[in-house]
């Protein structure tokens, strides 16, 4: 059976609308859906060029059909206008007065928060691997490390040094690792130097990391949140429309109680919950192969059922994940195909699918106008 990755790979052999860049790098694929061996894909183009780009469409369709296990393929051309988050549409939304519907980040389609109530449940490791995994699915991904007091993205992505200013724009160029654009306060202060800030400083730093970094173009910006429900969470929830939140928890009650608080906070500000990830779900002994459920098991799955939110998957407590994280080589990239990497890929597929169809409970922003 063909996977989403196979389809993306097939599409990378076709040249995009400009006739030079492969389709997958041209930022024009607006959707890929697989159902029972049938593939539907949409390429967004300038509607005026529809006739001229018909051969490109046909080639893309043929490339997908040629994949083993694909019964049928339909590739459609759609008008670019649908891509509301783009910079072009942001201009149109300020007709009269100061009303606007777009405080969204221009050029960033979806912003996803990775959060937990409690610290130490492996949020940053999950966020990092989720970002790399989403990239492997063919999406353009960024990771914003919003944990100002304990930034971990530099270590997890094996990055050091300082970011440069982007050319021609008053913005910081994000660092890059494993195909992911990464920005963290950790690049801007000495390693080991503490950040001792009150709320207003936190709020302005988060706003800068969002708006004064050259993120665009991105399909998904993954935000690694600090634990808890404080200034950072509130700033994120107020500053940009979040596509949803992924909640990370260990299966033990102590963590689940806090996870519930986190979920309640997101619900209060109408951020859809994309689902719960159970991290450190179980431990498989490398010596005897016996499985130990250190923090109990399936607690997060039960919690998800009770709260009526999706359960995204389980990640084992695993020495390889820990070691690769400390080495700055996310397992999804450095151990691709391993069961550990697959566990993350599974979660990434679920998240990508939900983002495409819209999270349950997600509603479009209301139109606002004056006059």
């Amino acid at each position, binding site marked *: 059976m063909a996977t989403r990755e196979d389809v993306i790979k097939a599409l990378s052999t076709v040249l995009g609308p400009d006739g030079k860049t492969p389709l997958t790098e041209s930022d024009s694929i607006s959707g890929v859906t697989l159902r029972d061996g049938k593939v539907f894909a949409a390429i967004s183009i300038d509607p005026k060029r529809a006739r001229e780009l018909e051969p490109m469409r046909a080639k893309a369709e043929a490339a997908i059909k040629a994949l083993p296990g694909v019964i049928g393929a339909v590739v459609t051309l759609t008008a670019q206008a649908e891509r509301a988050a783009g910079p072009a549409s942001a201009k149109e939304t300020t007709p009269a007065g100061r009303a606007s519907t777009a405080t969204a980040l221009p050029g960033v389609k979806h912003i996803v928060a990775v959060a937990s109530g409690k610290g130490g449940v492996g949020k940053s490791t999950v966020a990092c691997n989720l970002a790399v995994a989403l990239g492997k699915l063919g999406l353009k991904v960024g990771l914003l490390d919003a944990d100002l007091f304990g930034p971990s993205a530099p270590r997890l992505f094996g990055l050091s040094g300082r970011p440069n200013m982007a050319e021609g724009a008053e913005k910081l160029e994000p660092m890059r690792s494993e195909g992911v654009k990464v920005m963290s306060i950790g690049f801007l202060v000495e390693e080991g130097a503490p950040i001792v800030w009150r709320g207003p400083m936190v709020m302005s730093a988060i706003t800068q990391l969002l708006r004064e970094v050259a993120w665009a173009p991105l399909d998904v910006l993954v935000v690694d949140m600090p634990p808890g429900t404080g200034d950072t969470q509130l700033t994120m*929830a107020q500053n940009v429309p979040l596509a949803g939140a992924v909640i990370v928890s260990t299966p033990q009650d102590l963590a689940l109680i806090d996870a519930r608080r986190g979920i309640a906070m997101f619900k209060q500000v109408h951020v859809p919950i994309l689902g719960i990830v159970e991290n450190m779900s179980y431990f498989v002994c490398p010596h005897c192969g016996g499985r130990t459920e250190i923090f109990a098991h399936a607690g997060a799955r039960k919690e998800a059922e009770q709260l009526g939110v999706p359960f995204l998957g389980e990640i084992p407590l695993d020495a390889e994940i820990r070691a690769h994280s400390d080495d700055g080589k996310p397992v999804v990239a450095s151990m691709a195909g391993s069961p550990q990497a697959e566990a993350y890929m599974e979660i990434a597929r679920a998240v990508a699918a939900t983002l495409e169809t819209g999270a349950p409970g997600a509603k479009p922003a209301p139109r*606002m106008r004056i006059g």
Partner: protein
Amino acid sequence: MAWPTDIAALDGGTLLEVVYDDGVTARVSAEKLRVESPSAEVQGHGPGQKKTLTGKENVRIVGLEPIGNYAVKIVFDDGHSTGLYTWDYVRELAG
């Protein structure tokens, strides 16, 4: 819960009209929104601290800004702009 599809300041900014997806249209005067602003400036930091404002009959709305997925920030012509009105709160004020 009901979700707003359209939020408009009408009649020279003296009236806010919110259309919800359940068919209800809520209308609230700028004056009421101003004196019932959910901001700490008006509500204080606890029960019993609420301020009663007067002289706001002619206040006008000059700006509407979305706040995340859940609220609208209303800017008034008297300079007040710290109230974040959640979708439910506007409906509640409409009565």
